[in-house]
């Protein structure tokens, strides 16, 4: 079993819809939870990060972490065609242990 599980999709939604992306994990030591966005033939770029449980909002994006369920989510409101990309969740234990463990990524397409 992988430490981090993510549905690879692909996921296609119409423009303006709310998108929900999710990951589950098995290692309870993870404390930092990140979402990276990767456009085709580019390197991943950090979208948001959250420490421990809770919610974090940044514009149209909201990240949620539920450590009790070992479940994290990324919500995209008012989705735009420019949001079409692969979204990867990533997790880290703590500072001083810089290794990131990634999910497989979900390929998202927003249909105009």
């Amino acid at each position, binding site marked *: 079993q992988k430490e981090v599980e993510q549905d690879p999709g692909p996921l296609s939604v119409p423009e303006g819809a709310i998108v929900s992306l999710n990951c589950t994990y098995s290692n309870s030591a993870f404390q930092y939870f*990140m979402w990276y966005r990767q456009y085709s033939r580019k*390197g991943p770029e950090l979208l948001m990060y959250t420490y421990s449980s809770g919610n974090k909002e940044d514009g149209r994006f909201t990240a949620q972490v539920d450590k009790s369920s070992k479940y994290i989510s990324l919500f995209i409101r008012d989705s735009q065609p420019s949001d079409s990309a692969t979204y990867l969740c990533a997790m880290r234990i703590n500072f001083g242990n810089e*290794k*990131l463990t990634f999910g*497989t990524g979900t390929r998202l397409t927003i249909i105009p």
Partner: protein
Amino acid sequence: DAGITQSPRYKITETGRQVTLMCHQTWSHSYMFWYRQDLGHGLRLIYYSAAADITDKGEVPDGYVVSRSKTENFPLTLESATRSQTSVYFCASSDLTPEAFFGQGTRLTVV
């Protein structure tokens, strides 16, 4: 140019040949990483380095060698390339922040 750069961007090599992928960062970040990205597996850590002359294995290190004589450079060498090493390779760096900065990737094909 500031940032993290990988070279070459594309490489085709034959089975059994030695190949070196280069990674250079201009931020003086302490940590550097090599990942490979394959369909169905996502990003998997090959090797990482906490500082110059300090390296450690990641999840899939077999068949790879790294060195880090200078803080800014972290080359990855495939000692004897195999077809299973056909992949997209990403170098990344970070410095005690949540964010890791990734290069553009090197697309390697072993024939």
